[in-house]
């Protein structure tokens, strides 16, 4: 029982980061029907920005806002350079464009920085824990969960109370109709990339704090988590994305602690397999990506 509770708390911490990532993926999918394989690039770029900042001798207090700013700017820049030019293209083109963005960013860091891992110091409290009864809780997880809750509350306020939020939700519910109703699609999409970049930035702060390093392909892993979690939640759905992120975090922690050691390395594969099975056996149900056919 204690172990299960422990797993749940660990899963919640991990899942919170995934939820932030997945929410960013879902926002973009909602407004332009793009499954964004470049969603991790914000973390790659801000990872190198953080590395550069630490080289200047800056502390985490300055680096955190720096990461957020860089992440938002990266997201907007990617939209400006690539996605803006493929608005309205078919899903095939959109998907491969994002794949292309990922590889361009990856290869630029490979070319101009190097393939080797760049390390920076993690904040001291990342590994601290405290005890509640027989549970060991990480300070880090507590912070992650707290920040995630605040972020989600603010995002939901943004979505419920502002014109931008209304436009975004309308677009997510039915993109074509929203456009017909006069939603300024380009502004909404740009706003969505900004929001998605901010969410990736917050997730990125935690990701980088824990990793304490960056590489040209650092964005791949968070991108996959975000995409998988968004898929679990049913791509278009924002609430689903958050739940998907939490579910993915829990599933990973549970699998890792329950699978026998010999196949513990398979965790990612098992999660992937489960999602594939979900698509196979519940197409359009739990996962609502299927388009309604209009005759």
């Amino acid at each position, binding site marked *: 029982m204690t172990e299960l509770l422990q797993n749940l708390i660990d899963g919640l911490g991990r899942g919170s980061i995934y939820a932030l990532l997945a929410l960013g993926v879902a926002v973009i999918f909602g407004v332009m029907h793009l*499954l964004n394989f470049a969603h991790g690039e914000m973390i790659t770029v801000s990872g190198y920005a953080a590395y550069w900042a630490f080289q200047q001798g800056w502390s985490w207090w300055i680096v955190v806002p720096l990461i957020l700013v860089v992440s938002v700017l990266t997201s907007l820049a990617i939209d400006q350079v*690539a996605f803006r*030019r*493929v608005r309205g*293209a*078919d*899903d*095939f*083109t959109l*998907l*491969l*464009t994002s*794949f*292309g*963005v*990922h*590889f*361009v*960013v*990856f*290869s*630029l860091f*490979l*070319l*101009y920085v190097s*393939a080797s891992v760049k390390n920076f110091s993690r904040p001291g409290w990342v590994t601290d824990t405290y005890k509640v009864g027989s549970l060991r809780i990480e300070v880090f997880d507590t912070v992650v969960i707290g920040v995630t809750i605040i972020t989600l509350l603010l995002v939901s306020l943004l979505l419920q109370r502002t014109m931008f939020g209304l436009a975004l939700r309308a677009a997510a519910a039915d993109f074509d109709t929203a456009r017909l109703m006069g939603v300024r699609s380009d502004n909404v999409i740009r706003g969505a990339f900004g929001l998605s970049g901010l969410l990736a930035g917050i997730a990125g702060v935690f990701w980088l704090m824990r990793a304490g390093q960056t590489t040209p392909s650092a964005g791949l892993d968070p991108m996959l988590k975000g995409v998988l979690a968004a*898929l679990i939640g049913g*791509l278009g759905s924002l609430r689903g994305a958050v739940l998907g992120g939490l579910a993915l975090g829990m599933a990973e922690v549970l699998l890792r602690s329950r699978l026998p050691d*010999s*196949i513990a*390395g*398979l965790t*990612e*594969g098992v999660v*992937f*397999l489960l*999602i*594939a*099975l979900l*698509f*196979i*056996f519940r*197409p*359009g149900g739990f*996962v609502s*990506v*299927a388009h309604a*056919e*209009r*005759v």
Partner: protein
Amino acid sequence: MGGLFPNIKRDVVFPLIGVIVLFVAVVAGALLYQSILGGAAERLVTLMLINAILVIGMQIYVGNTGVLSFGHIGFGAIAGYTFAVFAISPAEKLKRIPDAPFGLAEVDMNPWLALVIAVVVTLGFALLVGIGLARSGAESGAVAATVITLALLFVTHEVARNWPDLTGGDRAGLSFRIGGALDTRVPVYLALFCSLLVARLYAQSRSGRLAAAAREDNLAARAMGVNPLVQQMVALLISVAVVAVGASLRVYENGSILPDNLFFDLTLVTLVMLIVGGRNSVTGALVGVVVMTAGRELARRLGQEGFEVFGIGLDGAPLDWVFRENLQTVFLGVSMLVFMIWRPSGLLDDWELDEWLYARFGKSPSVKPDPLAELADNTGPALQASGIDVVFGGFQALKGAGLTAETGEIIGIIGPNGAGKTTFVNVITGMVKPTAGSFAIGDIDLTTKPPFELARSGIARTFQNLRLFSALTVRENVEASALIAKEHRRGHAVPNVDAIIAEAGLWDHRDRRARELDYGNSRRLELARAAATAPSFLLLDEPTSGMSNSESLEMIEQVRHMAATVGAAVIVIDHDLGFITGISDRIYVFDQGQVIADGTPAEVQADERVRAAYLGSAGG
């Protein structure tokens, strides 16, 4: 052969000639390059030819079905490991994987037999994945399919990393001998030639044409009698077989296999090659391989040696910031992005060498066919629908609607917008399942049948909002229907493709793409494509909407005549009372989901309720 390929000269002979030309050109070019640069280029050329096999294999699936697969290199990994486990000598295996399951460590096998086993095993996996893809509702551009194939890639990679007893694990892997085990390039040539030929023949075959139709418009293809899932499965299996051969050869050439050899990087390289060349064309895929290999090699050399590769040797050249190590990776990524943004259909789009050759040298001058004769004897069971209810959420779109259509009749369905006319057609063609009621042709109940089976039973339709196979030519659009008719409408008058095209007034446009047609001709093509399925019942959803009066009159004549030549009853929907009374033998009037009147045009026009409902709500 006749059943498999509609036209032997166009679909078999010319593709064979085209493939020979392509093959000779690529191999000759490669050998020339190799003879100029010497031994260093040898491996590059071999790898390019093997990559070509992989990319052609991917093209067979991605090109013909439009489904983006990230999983083909995952299939390649399955093939590569199977091949290695069977083909590596027991002596070597006992060093690396002494505990391999099923006593595989002791198996001693000729590599070519191992290749066959690798293909068979991989096909087994492809069958499973294919069933999964089918269940997920794979269609062109489907996100679900992409995720499933991506899952395959990741799962095979993780299994390979975590099953050292079979795969040698992450570090050591499996190996034949250092420096490569393939002593001659003959098998590579042979495999490349065969994959090119298989790819071209498949695209021209019945299955390939139907898959391409479904790629262009899945729903319209199903409405014509195509079961896209079957054609996608055929494409997948053929494509995976080719990829399995390519991957095994790659492993043999390398002399070893590690999990990362057949994973993300190779997926990227091969996908970029396919996209850049043009995923809808075999010629394009091959061109993509050559262009990207050359480009990458150039980028690599420039990255390593800077300008010196041209013998100029500028020290501290201003372009040093570009010519750096790993430039080839940037080249790959940028190529992908640039093509996706500016030319997503690739260099060649769907241009094929053999089609060009056929158009120039192969085609016999075609003569416009004579008008079709109307069938004299035309009897068959009637289509009967009764008590059809459809509820969408809380809205009842149809309440006990029904209709009877005898062969040879022209039935009009009329009613104001929202009366349930299109919903009724959607029910009869299987696209909306009724909540109650049934319909049948004669004694055969069809209520629960999927669209493609209904089409095969003789119910064809057109779409109000035009759903043509837009990248295919007019002739290919009609031909796809005719292929279905030939197979599933035996015993019915299956019309000649050319004659139908001429009948629809599209003879001069027959080699144009459907997307290039103007609105009126697009409508005519919808009609021709539906008529070519040799239907017993032809359902037309507002066939004259957006047409001028004179065009409409002409269309009425075409509909009448075409229905008579294929022996079909016509059920035509419109909201224009004048048009419907002009064309129909009998009329059903729909209002608010119910049939409020039926009878001859005169009877219906005299009906009080019709006047009230129709004139009242639609204003005339």
